[in-house]
């Protein structure tokens, strides 16, 4: 079982220091655990990291997260990493390629895994939280997150590419000693980095916008928006206080409330008289 983890040059959301994106650290955890489940015959078959970009130092943290070896394809700033990555992955032919659901440092649109899957003609399973060997040899069982702990379990015959969802197990701790022992292999660019489809954008500092209030219609007046914010939909307006009610009555009120907001299923499947 050969596993590659795609790495991107992340930035810490607060401090802006170069860090390994959390999703990729989670991907490494999945990869190392899966690698251990299959047993690692030798160092070359152990999970490895792959990064295409100007600087390998940006992803060196991945060594401390549990990868023994990183491959770095030197690319100029802004070049499309897909052809180079596709060429290298075609050459190494890993059985499983893991990536974060959205890499950082490039276009940050999360398109690279999809472009790679198309270039390598492999199925892509998005937003996985767990990967395990399937019952049949050569198959993998992947759990996709559907949000709120619901899963879609997909069985697929490898090789396959998967992206990792934030609900996957939290990253392992960075170990300085492991990072010290790991190696970074520099590879020259193997394919001409042509420009991928890019949208010309204009950048400016981020401005936080108010979240849309549920139920407030578009183009409504300020009064309507205020009503939506404080009116029917907000918890404040529905604030009900029952002081010393009969426990039975309290129970009825609670159940009615829970059903109204939809967290408890209605009592009967057939319609009320």
């Amino acid at each position: 079982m050969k596993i590659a983890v795609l790495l991107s040059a992340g930035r810490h959301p607060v401090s802006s220091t170069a860090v390994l994106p959390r999703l990729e650290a989670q991907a490494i955890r999945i990869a190392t655990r899966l690698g251990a489940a299959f047993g690692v015959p030798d160092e070359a078959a152990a999970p490895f990291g792959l990064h295409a970009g100007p600087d390998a130092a940006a992803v060196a943290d991945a060594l401390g997260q549990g990868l023994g070896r990183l491959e770095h394809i030197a690319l100029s700033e802004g070049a499309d990493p897909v052809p180079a990555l596709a060429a290298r992955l075609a050459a190494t032919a890993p059985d499983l390629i893991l990536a974060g659901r959205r890499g950082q440092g490039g276009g940050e649109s999360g398109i690279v895994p999809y472009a790679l899957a198309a270039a390598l003609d492999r199925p892509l399973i998005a937003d996985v939280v767990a990967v395990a060997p399937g019952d049949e040899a050569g198959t993998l069982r992947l759990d996709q997150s559907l949000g709120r702990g619901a899963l879609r379990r997909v069985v697929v015959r490898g090789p396959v590419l998967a992206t990792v969802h934030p609900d996957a197990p939290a990253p392992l701790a960075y170990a300085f000693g492991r990072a010290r022992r790991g190696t970074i292999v520099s590879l020259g660019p193997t394919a001409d980095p042509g420009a991928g489809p890019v949208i010309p954008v204009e950048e400016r500092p981020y401005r936080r916008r108010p979240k849309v209030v549920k139920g407030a219609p578009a183009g409504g007046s300020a009064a309507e928006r205020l009503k939506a914010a404080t009116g029917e939909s907000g918890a404040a307006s529905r604030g009900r206080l029952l002081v010393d009610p009969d426990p039975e009555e309290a129970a009825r009120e609670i159940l009615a409330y829970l059903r109204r907001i939809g967290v408890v299923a209605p009592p009967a499947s057939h319609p009320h008289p």
Partner: protein
Amino acid sequence: MTRLRRDPRAERTAIRVAAGTRPRYDRTAKPAGGRPRRDPRAERAGQRVPGASRPRFDLSPIILSQALHGDRPVVAETRPRPAPEAAPRIVVVEDPAFLVAVVPDATGGRLSGHDRQVLGAARTLAGREGGVVVVSAGPCEGCGPAGADRHVVLDDPGPDPAARAATIAAALADLEPRHVLFPESLDGGDLARRIAVRMGVALFDNAEVVAAAGLVRPARGRRVEQRAAPGRLATVAADAVPDHAGAPREARVLTVATAPAPASRLLSTERIPADPATVPLALAEFVTAAGNGLTDLDTFRQVVAALRATPGASRVLCDAGLMPRHTQVGASGTVLAATCYFALGISGAPQHLQGIAGCEHVVAVNTDLHASMIERAGLAIVQDAQAVMPALLRLLAQEAGEQEAGHPAGDPS
């Protein structure tokens, strides 16, 4: 909506007491129209909490509007609901100048809240001349009121997203819309990227602003935002763009040329719903939590199971070893993202309230009227949780019994 002009003279005449020579007026009579006069004394009486020997008053503001009417201890705020408006006319765009396509998630054949927001965004882009077309794999209800002029219903290609992408891409190739919008949800985002790669077109993802002048999305960990003219493909972030507010549209059904979906490469797919009993607390949708006010945790566990909720607990219970540590809610435990938090016997320490800051609805049962949790709750019940739990269990059991017997359950509300 012009209000009737008040005539103070006439009003006074109306309340004049007939007897006596000196003019006397009955000020207690309720005026025929206009706003009711406040009566602080009655309000105060209404705020009085029954039962206590010492007079205690509930001063929370929600009580005020009801204090006038009756002396029931149960006080509820019920705003006058707006009268149902007459069904407005359906807007028809007969010959749209261009199309804006929306590919909704439409889980279970219905538009999600996020889908409706994307339709609102599409409506903005389409303007007066353009038409919004919903392209759904499988049936989808309610497209017209949400702003769709046209509706393409494709055959459901099954659970494989690759097949779904192929089917939808073929339809889009036939429709040739100017823009295609997707929700940036788990499935929608996945589909958008698959289609972008198939079409070889760049994707503008996670737009937080959608306008004909340009789309805006956050980038580099929300340190910068990027603006671009609306392109071919875009995904729209959740809760960033409002729903369509105008008159409903016709959602006329279109048929397009379809291509057969490629064979799925997935050997099997299986949906595993979240088990509320075991789902991680941070992901749970409905958390029922126990606090220091509970002594009978077995009943609590029965309530949790009966409500199909995820169990939580305050720190005190976890410290005492009565509940496992991983159930602890709060700043030092788990910070919740639940839709509803049902707090039984929890007074609500600041650290605990930090843990439920993200919960949309809170139901609290506590004996202390002045507990922070009561203040935070959408439904607050000042009563011993120890007494409410069995009542709740009885009620649920009764309903289940009625259901089994074939009788419809009584309307609980």
